[in-house]
Structures are given as C-alpha cells and as structure tokens.
C-alpha cells in the first residue's frame, strides 16, 4: 500500500498541472494514470489555447470573458469565467517559460494568435496544429524535472472514503503487475478527462470513458450539467477523427452538395466561425434536408494553398489523407458533427473542491466548475485544464497544509475487498460481453441524444439505458489472467459509461428548453425563467435523481445569442 499527501488521478493537462502546483506548494504529490502521461488525450488537441495576450490585435480579458459567457449560452458561472480569462495570460506565459514551443508572430517574435470560433479577436495561441501535444509534453518534462512520482498504467477503480464520508484515497488495478492496490491520500484530485466515448462516433480517445465522473457519482458526489455534450462540426467519417477548428480559423469554408456556402444562411456575420453548437446544427440541418453528401458536408481548404496548409495545418493534412483518403490541398474533406467535448462533470467550486465531499477535488474535462456552461468555445478547454488544474493543485495542497485529510483511513483491506468483487467478475463464465453493452449504447446516444433531441427520442433512450443497465452486472470477461487484462478494464469502463449515459439522458429529458449544445426540437427556445440553472445528478439506489443549483451572474445580462 502507498500513501501520499495528494493523489492526482489522471495525467493529462489538468492532472499534471495540478500535480506541479501541489509539488511547488511543498506537499508530497503523486500521479496515478491508466495510460502513460504522454498518451493522455490532451495531446490530441490541435487547434489552440485561448488567452487575451493581445499579440495580434488589441484584446482584453473582459472581451474574453464576454465571449465565453455568450458562448456558454449564459449557463457558465461568470465569477469562474472571470478567473479562467483573468488567469489565462499568466498560465500561457508560464507554459512558455517552461519551454512550450508556441508558434511565433512573424515580426514581433511574441506568441502568435489565430482566430477561433465564437471569439471576437484572434486570441488562440497555438503550436502549428499540435498545441495539445506540445503543452502535454511541456508539463511532462516539468514533472520529470521535479521527479513527481507517477503510477503509470494504474487503473483507478474506486474512491475510498472514511467514516465521515471524506475522501481518503483510491483503489487501483496495477495493470502490469496484475495486482489491486490501495493508495491512501489526504486529498484526491480527479483529472480523468472527458466522456466522449459515451457516443459513437466521437473525436475522443478510446480512453475517454469518463471514469472520474463515475467514480465520484458512485461515491455519492453529484455531477453537474450532464446533458450538455458538444458536437464538433468537423469530424472525419467514419472514424470520428477530428479536423481542428483551426482549419476554419485559417479560412476553411463549409459547402453543401450544391456547392453553396451554407453558413451564410445560419450565421451571416461569423459564418464558419460561429459558435460550435450553431455550426453543428447548421450542418445537421443541411444533411437532414438532403443537401449533404453521404451523411456529410464538405470542408474546403483548397483556396488556402499548399504552402499555408503545409505550414499551419500539416497534421490535418496527414490525418485527412490517412483516415479519409483525401488530400485537402486537392479536394474538399467530407466531415460531419461528432461528439467532442463534455461540458458536464464532477460538481466543484472555483477551487476545484467538491462541496459534497471533503478531500475530493476535480479539474479539467472531468470537472464542471462551470466555465463552459451549455457550450464550450474552442481553445477554452485546454485553458480550463491548465488554469483550474493549477488552482486545484494549489487548493489541494492548502487543504493538506491546513491539517485536513485522513490518509490513514485507507487500508489494504480496501484493495482486498475490491479484489473479492473482481474475483466474482473474473470467475463468471456466462453473461454479456462488454462490447454488446458499449456499442449499442454509443450508437443509441448518437441517434437519440445527438445534435437535435426531442421528448420521444429521449424517452426511447431512457428505455435503452435501463435495459443495458440491467446487463451490466452480468458482464462476462473472457480474459481470466491478471496481467494487462484489458477485457477487465473495458468491462469496468463500460459500467462507467452506462452510469454517465443515464445522467445525460435524465438531464436532457428534464431540461425542456434549447440552450447551447442541448437543442430540443420540441422546445426550441431558451427559457431563462425556468432553466437558467445547473442540473445536478445524484445516483441513489441505482437511479438518477436530479436537483438544480444557481448560475452565478456578475457583469453580463443574458442576451439573445446571434453570430
């Protein structure tokens, strides 16, 4: 058994940034991650990270705040958004000081910035189209420098709580050695990333199964705003591999089967650079009304020319060629909306602390502060991961310094108990294989809880989720070994995905309005009177119970959102 002051579950941008902050604050912190840190899905982020540096044109954190509030369809908490945008320049500069290879401005040598969807100014810092990779690597190199211990390929399966209900550690499966371990901690930070794999297609990695959210939910902590899943307007078919918004930021245009630049109908001012929910809905409408091409519309980059494509979007070209067989220098890329970013997550405050459980913190995509509200702006989630990663690491360290936490309550027996549960699962020979739950769930979510939703579809979705939920306890694992048992991991993840789908569907059924990414054809208007509130999902006796909490407003009164 191991013990640390702070245990960070997840080593993407949020997890590593939190660990670095905690380390700098002088506590003993360790990372625990199911895949090696540099494999984390943050590395797939292409487009960039927002900060009002004003390196291209005048800009201010107030502008950034306003764009984010508007982008969130007024569901974001404005005090938290002020922190996000206010801390942004400092965090970017910190990353630069640690060595991040940001692309540079042609003449000034400052960090270059590009336009991005939903933003009034070119505000997105980038490293060609490898922004996430470069930042992930930068943080990893800092963790190496600080010699922060890292439990690599440890899959966290449960949170441990003490008699008072405070979080005091985790149980994890050491995949390489095949053992179950208890890791005690005074504070646990969840930074397990997104839950995009609830859907298919998804731009998310196979590892983005929302584990941390489900761990918290099962431990009695509510999840916030689960009905808000963002669909990215440009994903490759059939794989769901992402084409960055940077492609439109650099001037890419969207065409239907008539060769018409259809965004001029839906967002006459911002066109392709309207907010993501708007562009995804426009595409879905074109496709539904028969103006698509094999279920897709076309993203045309040809007019940018070879040189610009090679310099600014080299990875996009590589991906389009490898995964869609198209060279964007020569032909438009067929694309469609796909599940991309989950605005919801573990309900935490603006220090990343979970108000419902002492000792538990969360940051990054698995958390919901909320800064993205009903719709996240491109370039704001890498930012959230570093800004709130840092704050949460600080807060967890402070929690420890203040004498809180009860790491001693985590005992080897916790691992042994889990081991017993696993043995039941491993010994079972008859039942449902995990993919017979996971695949139908993901397809159904896309079909019935997708870009457009309605009451009938959502009720049908609820029924499917209920059926699949019943199958979860009967899952059968074909690998009976201990070492690197992926069959086991997939089964545990599938259980998590079903929990999360349950919350998403219930939240979506209840929310009888359209706001941001949640678009109901039977309730097409935003209803501030009734629905200007966050939803909270609790899991009680295997059922989701909904509750609601206030949205914090500071400067900006809700307006109608046009682009």
């Amino acid at each position, binding site marked *: 058994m191991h013990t640390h002051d702070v245990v960070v579950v997840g080593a993407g941008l949020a997890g590593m940034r939190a660990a670095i902050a905690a380390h700098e604050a002088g506590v003993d912190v360790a990372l625990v991650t199911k*895949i*090696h840190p*540099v*494999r*984390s*899905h943050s*590395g*797939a982020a292409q487009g960039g990270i927002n900060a009002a540096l004003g390196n291209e044109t005048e800009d201010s954190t107030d502008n950034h705040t306003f764009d984010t509030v508007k982008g969130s369809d007024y569901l974001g908490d404005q005090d938290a958004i002020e922190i996000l945008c206010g801390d942004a320049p400092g965090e*970017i*500069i910190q990353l*630069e*000081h*640690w*060595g991040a*290879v*940001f*692309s*540079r*401005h*042609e003449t*000034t*040598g*400052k*960090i*270059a910035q590009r336009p991005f969807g939903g933003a009034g100014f070119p505000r997105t810092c980038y*490293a*060609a189209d*490898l922004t996430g*990779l*470069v930042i992930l*690597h930068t943080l990893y*190199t*800092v963790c*190496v*420098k600080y010699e922060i211990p890292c439990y690599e390929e440890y899959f966290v399966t449960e949170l441990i709580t003490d008699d008072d209900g405070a979080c005091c550690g985790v149980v994890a499966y050491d995949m*390489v050695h*095949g053992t179950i371990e208890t890791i005690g901690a005074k504070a646990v930070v969840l930074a397990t990333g997104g839950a995009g794999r609830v859907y298919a297609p998804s731009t998310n*990695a*196979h*590892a983005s199964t929302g584990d941390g959210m489900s761990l918290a939910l099962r431990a009695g902590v509510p999840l916030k705003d689960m009905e808000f899943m963002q669909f990215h307007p440009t994903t490759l078919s*059939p*794989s769901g*591999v*992402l084409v960055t918004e940077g492609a439109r930021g650099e001037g890419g245009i969207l065409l239907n089967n008539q060769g018409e630049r259809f965004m001029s109908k839906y967002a006459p001012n911002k066109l392709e650079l309207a907010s993501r929910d708007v562009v995804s809905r426009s595409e879905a409408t074109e496709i539904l009304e028969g103006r698509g091409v094999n279920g897709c519309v076309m993203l045309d980059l040809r007019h940018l020319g070879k040189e610009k494509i090679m310099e600014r979007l080299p*990875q996009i070209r*590589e*991906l389009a060629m*490898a*995964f869609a067989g198209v060279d964007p220098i020569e032909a438009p890329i067929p694309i469609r909306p796909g599940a991309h970013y989950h605005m919801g997550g573990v309900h935490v405050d603006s220090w990343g602390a979970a108000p419902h459980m002492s000792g538990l913190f969360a940051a990054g995509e698995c958390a919901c502060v909320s800064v993205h509200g009903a719709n996240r702006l491109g370039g704001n989630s890498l930012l959230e991961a570093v800004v709130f990663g840092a704050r949460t690491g600080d807060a967890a360290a402070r929690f420890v310094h203040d004498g809180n936490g009860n790491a001693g309550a985590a005992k080897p027996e916790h691992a042994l108990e889990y081991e017993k549960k696993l043995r039941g699962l491993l010994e079972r020979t008859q039942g449902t*294989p995990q*993919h017979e739950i996971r695949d139908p769930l993901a397809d159904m979510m896309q079909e019935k809880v997708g870009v457009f939703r309605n009451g009938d579809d959502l009720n049908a979705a609820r029924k499917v989720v209920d059926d699949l939920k019943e199958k979860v306890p009967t899952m059968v*694992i*074909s*690998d009976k*070994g*201990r*070492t*690197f048992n*992926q*069959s086991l991991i997939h089964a545990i993840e599938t259980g998590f995905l079903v929990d999360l789908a349950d919350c998403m569907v219930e939240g979506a059924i209840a929310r009888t309005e359209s706001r941001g990414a949640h678009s109901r054809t039977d309730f097409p208007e935003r209803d501030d009177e009734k629905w200007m509130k966050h939803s909270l999902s609790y899991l009680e006796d295997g059922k989701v119970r909904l509750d609601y909490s206030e949205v914090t407003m500071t400067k900006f009164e809700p307006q109608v959102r046009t682009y």
Partner: protein
Amino acid sequence: MPQTTFDIFRYQPDFADESYRQSYALDHEPELTILDAVLRLQNEQDGTLAVRYSCRSAICGSCACRVNGKTVLACMTQVEDVKKEFGSDTVQVDPIGNFAPIKDLVVDMDPFWEKFKSVKPFLVPDGPAPEKERIVSKEAMQKIYNESKCILCAACYSECNSFAADEEFVGPAAFVWGYRFAGDERDGQRKARAKLYSGQHGVWDCTRCMYCNERCPKGVDPRDAIEKLGGIAFNEGISWADSGARHAKAFLISVRTGGKLNETLLVPFTAPIQSQMDMPFALRMLRKGKAPSPIPHRVKKRSEVNKLMKNVKETI
C-alpha cells in the same frame, strides 16, 4: 468483403512461459486499420489479446508495433495496404523490437522512458524569466519544430542497429529530445548537453543505419537530430580523448549488428572531430549514410557472429 488472416505474436505470462503465434481470420470492410482489426479480434474472438492504444489518430504514440516485420503505428496502417504491399492475405503483427514483451503486443517501455529522462528533457534557461513570454523569432522556433512533433512512440528503437547491439545506447528518440532542448535558443545548457550526449553510448555510437528516419511515423528524422547534436558538440569544442577505444567499440558494434566490417562506418566514429579539417568530411560521411551502404561480408548465423566477436575482442 475482404478476408484477412492475422498471424499475431502471443505472450501470455499468466498461462505460459514461452511465446507463440496465433492466427485469426477476419471478414472486414475494406477500410480497416491494423489497430481496429486487433480491437475487433479482442472483442469478437479473443479477449485475452493485449495491445496498447488510445487516441486512434496517430498522436498518442501508444500503438507502435511491427506489421510484417516493419515498424508502424497500428492505427495509421490500413490492412488492405499491407496486403497489397506484401502480396499476401496474411498479415503478421508483432510487438516492436528490442523491448521485452509484457503481454502480446505490449512491451516493457521502462528502458525507453529511462533513456528519455537521461537526456535531461526539460528547459534549463539562463537567468530569471522575463515578465512576459521570451521573444523568439519564428525561424528560431521553427528550428526545433520537427523534433517537437515526436510522439514518443519508440518506433525508432524497434529496428535501431546500435540499440540492438548495445542496450545502453541512448538512442534516437531520446536524442530527438536532446536536440529539442539543445537547439532551443531559450535553453542555457547547450555545452553541458553536448557533453552529456557525447559520452559513452551517446551520439557517436549511432551506426547511421537510418532505420529511425525510415520508420518514424511522424517524419521527425531522429538521425538528423543526432547529426545536429554532433554538429553542436563540434561547435562547442567537445573532443574525445579516447578515440582509440571508440574505434574498437564502433568495430564491435558493426560486427554485432550485421556481422560485417564496414570501413566507411568507422571513420565518423573515430575521427569526427580530430581537427576542424576533418569535420566536413565526417559530415559528408554522415550524410552519405542516408543511402543504404553496400554491405561487405555479411555473416548469416548468430554463432558465426559470436565467433567473430570473440576474435575481435581478443585482438583489441
């Protein structure tokens, strides 16, 4: 619908001490990557199969493996392309070379991460940081852009000749990261790095077999980074006291890796930096290494190599 037989390397440490091979037949759509094929087999035929993977879009670096002997990223490689290239409906899938298997396609990457860490892969700037970002010209940043693309997939170690011969050889990706920092104008440790990378098992132990450049799925060109590090070492005046020992070692490596004695290979190892005059020559030689070198005198069997090695050891 195409049908493919996958002939996969199996190592199941919980059930058997020895590795073995297993064949699986799969009917599939024409568009299928090697990774998706393995994942389908895992779901539909054999849940005990193990493979590292995550992003499935060639960026997380998890899924390097050997397909028909050639190291690739499984997620980026189309099954039908492989079949066409090799003219066969059977596709062999193996773990990357030069690392010990943990289970099936999953190998022990610890030595790789140790090497990565050994090059001090973090920025060590001179002096305190300015209030804002450091000013760096676009061109200067561009210089290390290629190295920044490295996804740490270890494909470059899989067929590296020097690493096969000397497990302590620091190796291609680690030197990519070495250059990524030594070539970063914000870093203040250029000379110290050049020294660090030029020691035993360092940049001069590369045999220039060029496999790393050929196999890197991201076009990072590790051998070029090694060459650039050699240039930095030269410019920083790092010299070798033990050039004779080096010559012997180079000789050993070339024997062990190919059972061959390639004279051209020995030159840059032993005389790269003896005098300024030699440098262009050494560099030329290095560049020449890009072309596959004629292989004089290759021996066929391992036992023959061992014998040759014994002789070599006794004579030096």
